[in-house]
Protein backbone atom coordinates (compact mmCIF):
# COMPACT_ATOMS: atom_id res chain seq x y z
CA UNK A 1 0.00 0.00 0.00
CA UNK A 2 1.17 3.46 -0.84
CA UNK A 3 0.74 6.32 1.65
CA UNK A 4 0.51 9.94 0.63
CA UNK A 5 1.67 12.43 3.26
CA UNK A 6 1.04 16.12 2.59
CA UNK A 7 3.36 18.44 4.54
CA UNK A 8 3.30 22.20 4.95
CA UNK A 9 6.11 24.64 5.60
CA UNK A 10 5.08 26.95 8.44
CA UNK A 11 6.53 29.34 10.99
CA UNK A 12 8.51 27.22 13.45
CA UNK A 13 6.57 26.10 16.48
CA UNK A 14 9.06 27.76 18.84
CA UNK A 15 8.88 31.17 17.18
CA UNK A 16 6.41 33.66 18.59
CA UNK A 17 4.43 35.15 15.70
CA UNK A 18 4.56 38.92 15.33
CA UNK A 19 1.84 40.73 13.48
CA UNK A 20 3.14 43.08 10.78
CA UNK A 21 2.66 46.75 11.55
CA UNK A 22 0.72 47.32 8.32
CA UNK A 23 -1.84 44.67 9.29
CA UNK A 24 -1.31 42.54 6.20
CA UNK A 25 -0.31 39.39 8.04
CA UNK A 26 2.28 37.84 10.29
CA UNK A 27 5.93 38.64 9.69
CA UNK A 28 7.56 35.65 8.03
CA UNK A 29 10.70 37.36 6.79
CA UNK A 30 13.87 36.16 8.49
CA UNK A 31 12.15 33.75 10.84
CA UNK A 32 12.70 30.06 11.18
CA UNK A 33 10.32 27.92 9.14
CA UNK A 34 9.75 24.22 9.78
CA UNK A 35 7.41 21.41 8.97
CA UNK A 36 3.97 21.79 10.50
CA UNK A 37 4.15 19.68 13.70
CA UNK A 38 0.92 17.81 12.92
CA UNK A 39 2.32 16.90 9.50
CA UNK A 40 5.47 15.63 11.18
CA UNK A 41 3.25 13.28 13.15
CA UNK A 42 1.70 12.21 9.84
CA UNK A 43 5.10 11.42 8.35
CA UNK A 44 6.05 9.48 11.47
CA UNK A 45 2.83 7.45 11.34
CA UNK A 46 3.42 6.59 7.70
CA UNK A 47 6.96 5.46 8.49
CA UNK A 48 5.70 3.29 11.33
CA UNK A 49 3.16 1.69 9.01
CA UNK A 50 5.95 1.00 6.57
CA UNK A 51 8.14 -0.44 9.32
CA UNK A 52 5.24 -2.72 10.28
CA UNK A 53 5.05 -3.92 6.70
CA UNK A 54 1.62 -2.35 6.13
CA UNK A 55 2.85 0.31 3.74
CA UNK A 56 5.28 -0.17 0.89
CA UNK A 57 5.95 3.38 -0.23
CA UNK A 58 5.61 6.82 1.31
CA UNK A 59 5.17 9.83 -0.94
CA UNK A 60 5.49 13.26 0.68
CA UNK A 61 3.73 16.17 -0.99
CA UNK A 62 3.94 19.88 -0.40
CA UNK A 63 2.17 22.77 -2.06
CA UNK A 64 4.16 25.95 -1.65
CA UNK A 65 7.19 28.01 -2.66
CA UNK A 66 10.52 26.59 -3.84
CA UNK A 67 11.69 26.63 -0.23
CA UNK A 68 9.08 24.01 0.63
CA UNK A 69 11.65 21.63 -0.87
CA UNK A 70 13.46 21.85 2.46
CA UNK A 71 10.33 20.62 4.20
CA UNK A 72 10.06 17.75 1.76
CA UNK A 73 13.73 16.92 2.32
CA UNK A 74 12.98 16.76 6.02
CA UNK A 75 10.19 14.28 5.30
CA UNK A 76 12.58 12.29 3.11
CA UNK A 77 15.21 12.41 5.84
CA UNK A 78 12.70 11.05 8.32
CA UNK A 79 12.00 8.14 5.98
CA UNK A 80 9.64 9.06 3.14
CA UNK A 81 10.63 7.48 -0.17
CA UNK A 82 10.00 10.26 -2.64
CA UNK A 83 8.49 13.70 -2.81
CA UNK A 84 6.36 15.92 -4.98
CA UNK A 85 6.54 19.69 -4.76
CA UNK A 86 3.61 21.52 -6.28
CA UNK A 87 5.33 24.83 -6.61
CA UNK A 88 3.55 28.15 -6.29
CA UNK A 89 4.32 31.44 -4.59
CA UNK A 90 0.63 32.12 -3.97
CA UNK A 91 -0.96 31.55 -0.60
CA UNK A 92 -3.11 28.54 -1.41
CA UNK A 93 -6.32 27.92 0.53
CA UNK A 94 -7.30 24.51 1.90
CA UNK A 95 -9.95 23.97 -0.78
CA UNK A 96 -7.44 24.46 -3.59
CA UNK A 97 -4.87 22.35 -1.76
CA UNK A 98 -7.47 19.59 -1.45
CA UNK A 99 -8.14 19.81 -5.19
CA UNK A 100 -4.43 19.53 -5.96
CA UNK A 101 -4.14 16.58 -3.58
CA UNK A 102 -7.13 14.99 -5.28
CA UNK A 103 -5.22 15.22 -8.56
CA UNK A 104 -2.19 13.63 -6.96
CA UNK A 105 -4.32 10.92 -5.35
CA UNK A 106 -5.83 10.12 -8.75
CA UNK A 107 -2.35 9.73 -10.20
CA UNK A 108 -0.74 7.90 -7.29
CA UNK A 109 -3.66 5.75 -6.07
CA UNK A 110 -2.62 5.68 -2.41
CA UNK A 111 -4.31 3.43 0.14
CA UNK A 112 -4.07 6.10 2.83
CA UNK A 113 -3.54 9.84 2.88
CA UNK A 114 -2.29 11.03 6.28
CA UNK A 115 -2.49 14.76 6.92
CA UNK A 116 -1.99 16.95 9.94
CA UNK A 117 -5.34 17.91 11.46
CA UNK A 118 -4.46 21.53 10.93
CA UNK A 119 -1.52 23.77 10.11
CA UNK A 120 -0.33 25.91 13.00
CA UNK A 121 -0.30 29.06 10.90
CA UNK A 122 -3.84 29.52 9.60
CA UNK A 123 -5.41 26.94 11.96
CA UNK A 124 -8.06 26.07 9.37
CA UNK A 125 -8.46 22.37 10.09
CA UNK A 126 -10.06 21.67 6.71
CA UNK A 127 -7.78 20.14 4.12
CA UNK A 128 -8.14 16.47 5.11
CA UNK A 129 -11.91 16.64 5.33
CA UNK A 130 -12.13 18.49 2.01
CA UNK A 131 -9.88 15.96 0.30
CA UNK A 132 -12.14 13.21 1.68
CA UNK A 133 -15.17 14.94 0.16
CA UNK A 134 -13.51 15.38 -3.22
CA UNK A 135 -12.28 11.79 -3.41
CA UNK A 136 -15.44 10.39 -1.88
CA UNK A 137 -13.29 8.49 0.62
CA UNK A 138 -13.93 7.98 4.29
CA UNK A 139 -12.18 10.21 6.83
CA UNK A 140 -10.73 9.60 10.28
CA UNK A 141 -9.90 13.00 11.69
CA UNK A 142 -7.96 13.87 14.88
CA UNK A 143 -6.48 10.39 15.05
CA UNK A 144 -4.78 9.08 18.15
CA UNK A 145 -4.46 5.52 16.83
CA UNK A 146 -4.43 4.05 13.32
CA UNK A 147 -4.73 0.31 12.71
CA UNK A 148 -4.93 -1.08 9.21
CA UNK A 149 -6.73 -4.42 9.02
CA UNK A 150 -7.22 -5.92 5.59
CA UNK A 151 -9.14 -3.57 3.37
CA UNK A 152 -10.14 -1.22 6.15
CA UNK A 153 -8.56 0.95 8.80
CA UNK A 154 -9.67 1.52 12.36
CA UNK A 155 -9.06 5.07 13.48
CA UNK A 156 -9.37 6.14 17.09
CA UNK A 157 -10.32 9.80 17.17
CA UNK A 158 -9.83 12.42 19.85
CA UNK A 159 -13.30 13.89 20.25
CA UNK A 160 -14.65 16.34 22.81
CA UNK A 161 -14.95 14.44 26.02
CA UNK A 162 -13.11 11.29 25.04
CA UNK A 163 -12.20 8.93 22.27
CA UNK A 164 -14.21 7.35 19.48
CA UNK A 165 -13.24 4.62 17.05
CA UNK A 166 -14.48 4.41 13.48
CA UNK A 167 -13.87 1.77 10.87
CA UNK A 168 -13.12 3.14 7.41
CA UNK A 169 -13.01 1.39 4.09
CA UNK A 170 -9.70 1.86 2.27
CA UNK A 171 -8.61 4.03 0.58
CA UNK A 172 -9.18 6.57 3.34
CA UNK A 173 -8.07 9.90 4.74
CA UNK A 174 -6.56 10.23 8.21
CA UNK A 175 -5.73 13.47 9.99
CA UNK A 176 -3.39 13.38 12.96
CA UNK A 177 -3.75 14.65 16.49
CA UNK A 178 -0.91 15.27 18.91
CA UNK A 179 -1.06 12.01 20.78
CA UNK A 180 -0.83 9.75 17.75
CA UNK A 181 2.93 9.41 18.07
CA UNK A 182 6.15 11.23 18.86
CA UNK A 183 8.01 11.96 15.62
CA UNK A 184 11.62 10.83 15.34
CA UNK A 185 14.54 13.11 14.69
CA UNK A 186 15.98 12.80 11.21
CA UNK A 187 19.10 10.67 11.45
CA UNK A 188 22.34 11.77 9.86
CA UNK A 189 22.56 8.80 7.46
CA UNK A 190 18.97 9.44 6.39
CA UNK A 191 19.62 13.15 5.89
CA UNK A 192 22.43 12.13 3.54
CA UNK A 193 20.29 9.54 1.78
CA UNK A 194 17.45 12.02 1.40
CA UNK A 195 19.64 14.00 -0.96
CA UNK A 196 19.42 11.30 -3.58
CA UNK A 197 15.72 10.47 -3.20
CA UNK A 198 13.56 11.68 -6.07
CA UNK A 199 11.75 14.99 -5.75
CA UNK A 200 9.40 15.93 -8.59
CA UNK A 201 8.31 19.48 -9.15
CA UNK A 202 4.83 20.25 -10.49
CA UNK A 203 2.55 23.26 -10.62
CA UNK A 204 -1.11 23.68 -9.69
CA UNK A 205 -1.99 23.96 -13.37
CA UNK A 206 -0.61 20.44 -13.88
CA UNK A 207 -3.65 19.36 -11.87
CA UNK A 208 -5.97 21.89 -13.48
CA UNK A 209 -6.47 23.74 -10.21
CA UNK A 210 -7.15 27.46 -9.98
CA UNK A 211 -5.52 28.71 -6.77
CA UNK A 212 -7.13 32.15 -6.78
CA UNK A 213 -8.26 32.84 -3.20
CA UNK A 214 -11.94 32.68 -2.31
CA UNK A 215 -11.46 34.39 1.01
CA UNK A 216 -9.89 37.83 1.18
CA UNK A 217 -7.81 38.73 4.21
CA UNK A 218 -8.99 42.23 5.05
CA UNK A 219 -6.52 42.71 7.86
CA UNK A 220 -4.57 40.89 10.54
CA UNK A 221 -4.25 42.41 13.98
CA UNK A 222 -2.85 41.65 17.40
CA UNK A 223 -5.34 40.07 19.77
CA UNK A 224 -6.76 42.50 22.30
CA UNK A 225 -4.12 43.22 24.92
CA UNK A 226 -4.62 41.70 28.30
CA UNK A 227 -6.78 44.08 30.28
CA UNK A 228 -5.09 44.60 33.59
CA UNK A 229 -6.73 43.42 36.71
CA UNK A 230 -10.50 43.50 36.81
CA UNK A 231 -11.34 42.73 40.42
CA UNK A 232 -14.41 40.73 41.22
CA UNK A 233 -16.20 41.45 44.46
CA UNK A 234 -16.80 37.93 45.67
CA UNK A 235 -16.97 34.26 44.78
CA UNK A 236 -20.46 34.71 43.32
CA UNK A 237 -19.27 37.18 40.76
CA UNK A 238 -16.25 35.05 39.92
CA UNK A 239 -18.46 32.01 39.41
CA UNK A 240 -20.72 34.02 37.12
CA UNK A 241 -17.73 35.18 35.05
CA UNK A 242 -16.33 31.68 34.80
CA UNK A 243 -19.63 30.14 33.84
CA UNK A 244 -20.09 32.80 31.17
CA UNK A 245 -16.81 31.60 29.70
CA UNK A 246 -17.97 28.03 29.75
CA UNK A 247 -15.83 27.03 32.73
CA UNK A 248 -17.70 24.68 34.98
CA UNK A 249 -17.54 21.10 36.06
Amino acid at each position, binding site marked *: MKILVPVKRVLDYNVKPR*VKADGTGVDLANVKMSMNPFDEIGVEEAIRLKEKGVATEIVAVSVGPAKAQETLRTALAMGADRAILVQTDDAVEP*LAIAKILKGIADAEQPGLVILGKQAIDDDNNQTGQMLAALTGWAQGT*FASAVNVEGDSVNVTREVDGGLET*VKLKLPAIVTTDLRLNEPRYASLPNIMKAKSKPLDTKTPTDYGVDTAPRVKV*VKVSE*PAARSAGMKVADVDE*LVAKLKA*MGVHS
Partner: protein
Amino acid sequence: MKTLVWVEHDGKAVKDATLAVVTAAAKLGEVHLLVAGSGVDGVAKEAAAIAGVGKVHVADNAAFGHNLPENIAPLVAELMASHDAFLAPATTTGKNIAPRVAALLDVMQISEILSVEGPKTFTRPIYAGNAIATVESSDAKLVLTVRGTAFEKAATSGGSGTVEAVSAGGDAGISSFVGAEIAKSERPELTSAKIIVSGGRALGSSEKYEEVIVPLADKLGAALGASRAAVDAGYVPNDYQVGQTGKIVAPQVYFAIGISGAIQHLAGMKDSKTIVAINKDEDAPIFQVADFGLVADLFNAVPELTQRLGD
Protein backbone atom coordinates in the same frame (compact mmCIF):
# COMPACT_ATOMS: atom_id res chain seq x y z
CA MET B 1 -30.06 35.16 4.11
CA LYS B 2 -31.20 31.72 5.11
CA THR B 3 -28.86 29.89 7.43
CA LEU B 4 -28.69 26.25 8.39
CA VAL B 5 -27.28 25.48 11.82
CA TRP B 6 -25.93 22.09 12.77
CA VAL B 7 -27.51 21.00 16.04
CA GLU B 8 -25.03 19.21 18.22
CA HIS B 9 -26.74 16.71 20.49
CA ASP B 10 -26.16 13.43 22.25
CA GLY B 11 -29.33 11.78 20.94
CA LYS B 12 -31.30 13.00 23.94
CA ALA B 13 -30.70 16.71 24.31
CA VAL B 14 -29.33 19.71 22.44
CA LYS B 15 -25.77 20.48 23.50
CA ASP B 16 -24.89 23.96 24.68
CA ALA B 17 -22.42 24.46 21.84
CA THR B 18 -25.38 24.82 19.48
CA LEU B 19 -26.75 27.87 21.25
CA ALA B 20 -23.82 30.17 20.48
CA VAL B 21 -24.03 29.13 16.85
CA VAL B 22 -27.69 30.13 16.75
CA THR B 23 -26.68 33.58 17.99
CA ALA B 24 -24.04 33.86 15.27
CA ALA B 25 -26.49 32.65 12.60
CA ALA B 26 -29.11 35.15 13.71
CA LYS B 27 -26.66 37.94 12.91
CA LEU B 28 -26.68 36.72 9.30
CA GLY B 29 -30.38 36.10 8.75
CA GLU B 30 -33.11 33.55 9.18
CA VAL B 31 -32.12 30.60 11.39
CA HIS B 32 -32.94 27.06 10.35
CA LEU B 33 -31.64 24.09 12.28
CA LEU B 34 -30.66 20.62 11.24
CA VAL B 35 -31.13 17.80 13.68
CA ALA B 36 -29.65 14.63 12.27
CA GLY B 37 -29.56 11.35 14.11
CA SER B 38 -31.45 8.27 15.00
CA GLY B 39 -34.58 8.64 17.14
CA VAL B 40 -34.23 12.37 17.60
CA ASP B 41 -37.85 13.56 17.97
CA GLY B 42 -37.16 14.85 21.45
CA VAL B 43 -34.09 16.72 20.34
CA ALA B 44 -36.03 18.29 17.48
CA LYS B 45 -38.74 19.53 19.84
CA GLU B 46 -36.15 21.00 22.16
CA ALA B 47 -34.40 22.62 19.21
CA ALA B 48 -37.61 24.19 17.96
CA ALA B 49 -37.95 25.98 21.29
CA ILE B 50 -34.63 27.78 20.99
CA ALA B 51 -35.29 31.51 20.72
CA GLY B 52 -35.21 32.85 17.18
CA VAL B 53 -35.43 29.55 15.34
CA GLY B 54 -37.53 29.42 12.19
CA LYS B 55 -37.49 25.90 10.91
CA VAL B 56 -36.04 22.65 12.23
CA HIS B 57 -35.10 20.07 9.63
CA VAL B 58 -35.07 16.62 11.13
CA ALA B 59 -33.24 13.81 9.41
CA ASP B 60 -34.00 10.69 11.38
CA ASN B 61 -32.08 7.76 10.01
CA ALA B 62 -29.84 5.11 11.57
CA ALA B 63 -27.09 6.19 9.15
CA PHE B 64 -26.91 9.54 10.94
CA GLY B 65 -26.61 8.00 14.39
CA HIS B 66 -22.95 8.59 15.01
CA ASN B 67 -22.29 11.80 13.13
CA LEU B 68 -20.32 10.01 10.44
CA PRO B 69 -19.38 12.81 8.01
CA GLU B 70 -19.42 10.43 5.05
CA ASN B 71 -23.18 10.10 5.57
CA ILE B 72 -24.01 13.52 6.94
CA ALA B 73 -22.10 15.80 4.56
CA PRO B 74 -24.17 14.77 1.48
CA LEU B 75 -27.34 15.36 3.49
CA VAL B 76 -26.23 18.87 4.44
CA ALA B 77 -25.09 19.59 0.93
CA GLU B 78 -28.52 18.70 -0.37
CA LEU B 79 -30.25 20.94 2.18
CA MET B 80 -27.88 23.76 1.24
CA ALA B 81 -29.62 24.00 -2.14
CA SER B 82 -32.21 26.07 -0.29
CA HIS B 83 -29.93 27.77 2.27
CA ASP B 84 -27.19 30.38 1.97
CA ALA B 85 -24.99 29.56 4.93
CA PHE B 86 -24.12 26.48 6.93
CA LEU B 87 -22.91 27.01 10.48
CA ALA B 88 -21.56 24.43 12.88
CA PRO B 89 -19.99 24.75 16.28
CA ALA B 90 -16.19 24.48 16.32
CA THR B 91 -16.41 21.23 18.24
CA THR B 92 -14.74 18.05 17.09
CA THR B 93 -18.05 17.05 15.45
CA GLY B 94 -18.51 20.40 13.72
CA LYS B 95 -14.90 20.47 12.57
CA ASN B 96 -15.24 16.96 11.22
CA ILE B 97 -18.36 17.65 9.16
CA ALA B 98 -18.26 21.28 8.00
CA PRO B 99 -15.18 21.13 5.72
CA ARG B 100 -16.56 18.03 4.04
CA VAL B 101 -19.73 19.96 3.35
CA ALA B 102 -17.77 22.97 2.12
CA ALA B 103 -15.81 20.91 -0.40
CA LEU B 104 -19.02 19.30 -1.70
CA LEU B 105 -20.39 22.81 -2.23
CA ASP B 106 -17.10 24.08 -3.67
CA VAL B 107 -16.94 26.68 -0.92
CA MET B 108 -13.93 27.80 1.09
CA GLN B 109 -14.90 27.41 4.73
CA ILE B 110 -14.16 30.05 7.34
CA SER B 111 -13.15 28.32 10.56
CA GLU B 112 -13.79 29.27 14.19
CA ILE B 113 -15.30 32.69 13.67
CA LEU B 114 -15.09 35.06 16.63
CA SER B 115 -17.41 37.73 15.32
CA VAL B 116 -19.69 38.62 12.45
CA GLU B 117 -18.48 41.89 10.90
CA GLY B 118 -20.74 41.92 7.84
CA PRO B 119 -22.79 39.57 5.69
CA LYS B 120 -19.58 37.91 4.42
CA THR B 121 -16.98 39.32 6.78
CA PHE B 122 -15.79 37.64 9.96
CA THR B 123 -12.94 37.62 12.40
CA ARG B 124 -11.10 34.44 13.29
CA PRO B 125 -7.98 33.51 15.25
CA ILE B 126 -4.83 32.40 13.45
CA TYR B 127 -1.45 31.31 14.82
CA ALA B 128 -3.08 29.79 17.89
CA GLY B 129 -4.75 33.07 18.72
CA ASN B 130 -1.56 35.12 18.49
CA ALA B 131 -3.20 37.07 15.69
CA ILE B 132 -6.75 37.81 14.63
CA ALA B 133 -7.63 37.88 10.95
CA THR B 134 -10.57 39.75 9.47
CA VAL B 135 -11.64 37.83 6.39
CA GLU B 136 -14.25 38.24 3.70
CA SER B 137 -15.71 35.41 1.66
CA SER B 138 -16.36 35.72 -2.06
CA ASP B 139 -18.19 32.40 -2.35
CA ALA B 140 -21.88 32.31 -3.19
CA LYS B 141 -22.62 30.33 -0.05
CA LEU B 142 -21.00 30.36 3.36
CA VAL B 143 -19.70 27.51 5.45
CA LEU B 144 -18.64 28.56 8.93
CA THR B 145 -17.59 27.02 12.18
CA VAL B 146 -18.22 29.10 15.26
CA ARG B 147 -16.12 29.40 18.39
CA GLY B 148 -18.62 28.88 21.20
CA THR B 149 -17.03 31.20 23.72
CA ALA B 150 -17.15 34.14 21.31
CA PHE B 151 -20.95 34.41 21.14
CA GLU B 152 -23.67 34.66 23.75
CA LYS B 153 -25.85 31.62 24.03
CA ALA B 154 -29.33 31.84 22.58
CA ALA B 155 -32.16 31.25 25.05
CA THR B 156 -33.39 27.67 25.15
CA SER B 157 -37.00 28.70 25.26
CA GLY B 158 -39.32 31.18 23.60
CA GLY B 159 -38.79 29.91 20.09
CA SER B 160 -41.52 28.39 17.98
CA GLY B 161 -39.79 26.71 15.09
CA THR B 162 -41.65 24.39 12.80
CA VAL B 163 -40.36 20.86 12.61
CA GLU B 164 -40.00 19.39 9.16
CA ALA B 165 -38.81 15.86 8.37
CA VAL B 166 -36.07 15.39 5.78
CA SER B 167 -35.93 12.17 3.87
CA ALA B 168 -32.65 12.78 2.07
CA GLY B 169 -29.46 10.84 2.54
CA GLY B 170 -28.45 7.46 3.79
CA ASP B 171 -25.48 5.25 4.48
CA ALA B 172 -22.58 5.86 2.10
CA GLY B 173 -21.28 2.46 3.13
CA ILE B 174 -17.65 3.45 3.57
CA SER B 175 -17.48 4.05 7.29
CA SER B 176 -18.95 2.71 10.49
CA PHE B 177 -18.89 3.52 14.17
CA VAL B 178 -17.02 1.01 16.30
CA GLY B 179 -17.16 2.43 19.78
CA ALA B 180 -16.54 5.35 22.09
CA GLU B 181 -14.70 5.78 25.30
CA ILE B 182 -15.57 8.66 27.55
CA ALA B 183 -12.44 10.42 28.73
CA LYS B 184 -10.99 8.82 31.78
CA SER B 185 -10.72 11.20 34.66
CA GLU B 186 -6.97 11.10 34.21
CA ARG B 187 -5.44 14.40 35.04
CA PRO B 188 -4.25 16.23 31.92
CA GLU B 189 -0.61 17.10 31.34
CA LEU B 190 0.40 20.50 32.59
CA THR B 191 1.64 21.69 29.22
CA SER B 192 -1.39 20.57 27.23
CA ALA B 193 -4.18 21.19 29.74
CA LYS B 194 -7.02 23.54 28.90
CA ILE B 195 -7.35 24.54 32.54
CA ILE B 196 -4.62 24.74 35.17
CA VAL B 197 -5.04 25.29 38.87
CA SER B 198 -1.80 26.46 40.50
CA GLY B 199 -1.07 26.99 44.16
CA GLY B 200 1.58 29.10 45.85
CA ARG B 201 3.37 29.35 49.14
CA ALA B 202 0.38 30.97 50.82
CA LEU B 203 -1.09 27.48 51.08
CA GLY B 204 1.39 26.74 53.84
CA SER B 205 1.66 22.97 53.49
CA SER B 206 1.27 20.02 51.17
CA GLU B 207 -1.81 18.98 53.16
CA LYS B 208 -3.47 22.31 52.42
CA TYR B 209 -2.52 21.98 48.76
CA GLU B 210 -4.31 18.62 48.70
CA GLU B 211 -7.26 19.99 50.61
CA VAL B 212 -7.78 23.26 48.73
CA ILE B 213 -6.21 23.09 45.27
CA VAL B 214 -6.78 19.47 44.26
CA PRO B 215 -10.59 19.44 44.64
CA LEU B 216 -10.95 22.51 42.43
CA ALA B 217 -8.73 20.93 39.77
CA ASP B 218 -10.70 17.68 40.03
CA LYS B 219 -13.94 19.51 39.55
CA LEU B 220 -12.67 21.29 36.42
CA GLY B 221 -10.68 18.40 34.98
CA ALA B 222 -7.69 20.68 35.31
CA ALA B 223 -3.97 20.05 35.58
CA LEU B 224 -2.17 20.91 38.80
CA GLY B 225 0.56 23.52 38.94
CA ALA B 226 2.53 25.44 41.50
CA SER B 227 4.84 28.38 41.96
CA ARG B 228 8.51 27.78 42.57
CA ALA B 229 8.05 28.89 46.16
CA ALA B 230 5.52 26.11 46.71
CA VAL B 231 7.81 23.59 45.04
CA ASP B 232 10.81 24.71 47.07
CA ALA B 233 8.75 24.51 50.22
CA GLY B 234 8.09 20.89 49.34
CA TYR B 235 4.31 21.13 48.99
CA VAL B 236 4.41 19.47 45.56
CA PRO B 237 6.97 17.73 43.35
CA ASN B 238 9.32 19.60 41.02
CA ASP B 239 7.41 18.84 37.86
CA TYR B 240 4.46 20.91 39.06
CA GLN B 241 6.44 24.10 38.72
CA VAL B 242 5.12 26.72 36.34
CA GLY B 243 7.55 29.48 35.48
CA GLN B 244 10.53 30.43 33.42
CA THR B 245 12.55 27.54 34.77
CA GLY B 246 9.60 25.21 35.11
CA LYS B 247 6.90 24.58 32.57
CA ILE B 248 5.80 27.32 30.19
CA VAL B 249 2.05 27.02 29.87
CA ALA B 250 -0.72 28.78 27.97
CA PRO B 251 -4.03 27.17 28.92
CA GLN B 252 -7.47 28.59 28.27
CA VAL B 253 -7.85 29.34 31.96
CA TYR B 254 -5.12 29.63 34.58
CA PHE B 255 -6.00 29.83 38.26
CA ALA B 256 -3.24 31.40 40.38
CA ILE B 257 -4.13 30.72 43.98
CA GLY B 258 -2.04 32.18 46.74
CA ILE B 259 0.60 33.09 44.19
CA SER B 260 2.01 36.60 44.47
CA GLY B 261 3.19 36.67 40.85
CA ALA B 262 6.97 36.96 40.82
CA ILE B 263 8.29 37.87 37.38
CA GLN B 264 9.66 34.37 36.92
CA HIS B 265 6.25 32.84 37.52
CA LEU B 266 4.55 35.32 35.21
CA ALA B 267 7.00 34.39 32.44
CA GLY B 268 5.66 30.86 32.59
CA MET B 269 1.94 31.60 32.38
CA LYS B 270 1.42 35.08 30.99
CA ASP B 271 0.21 33.73 27.65
CA SER B 272 -2.76 31.99 29.26
CA LYS B 273 -5.99 33.06 27.62
CA THR B 274 -7.70 33.92 30.90
CA ILE B 275 -5.97 34.36 34.25
CA VAL B 276 -7.89 34.10 37.50
CA ALA B 277 -6.08 35.18 40.65
CA ILE B 278 -7.11 34.67 44.23
CA ASN B 279 -4.89 36.31 46.82
CA LYS B 280 -5.25 37.97 50.19
CA ASP B 281 -2.79 40.71 49.33
CA GLU B 282 -4.51 43.19 47.09
CA ASP B 283 -1.18 44.63 45.96
CA ALA B 284 0.15 41.27 44.74
CA PRO B 285 1.63 41.68 41.23
CA ILE B 286 -0.46 38.77 40.00
CA PHE B 287 -3.46 41.12 39.92
CA GLN B 288 -1.75 43.23 37.24
CA VAL B 289 -2.08 40.38 34.76
CA ALA B 290 -5.22 38.71 36.07
CA ASP B 291 -8.42 39.02 34.03
CA PHE B 292 -10.40 38.23 37.14
CA GLY B 293 -8.88 39.00 40.50
CA LEU B 294 -10.47 38.12 43.80
CA VAL B 295 -8.99 39.60 46.96
CA ALA B 296 -9.91 37.03 49.55
CA ASP B 297 -8.62 34.44 51.97
CA LEU B 298 -8.03 31.48 49.72
CA PHE B 299 -8.91 28.99 52.44
CA ASN B 300 -12.50 30.29 52.39
CA ALA B 301 -12.82 31.40 48.80
CA VAL B 302 -11.45 28.34 47.00
CA PRO B 303 -13.63 25.68 48.67
CA GLU B 304 -16.64 27.92 48.05
CA LEU B 305 -15.64 28.35 44.41
CA THR B 306 -15.18 24.60 44.05
CA GLN B 307 -18.60 23.96 45.40
CA ARG B 308 -20.35 26.71 43.44
CA LEU B 309 -18.83 25.66 40.10
CA GLY B 310 -20.55 22.34 40.49
CA ASP B 311 -23.96 23.91 41.02
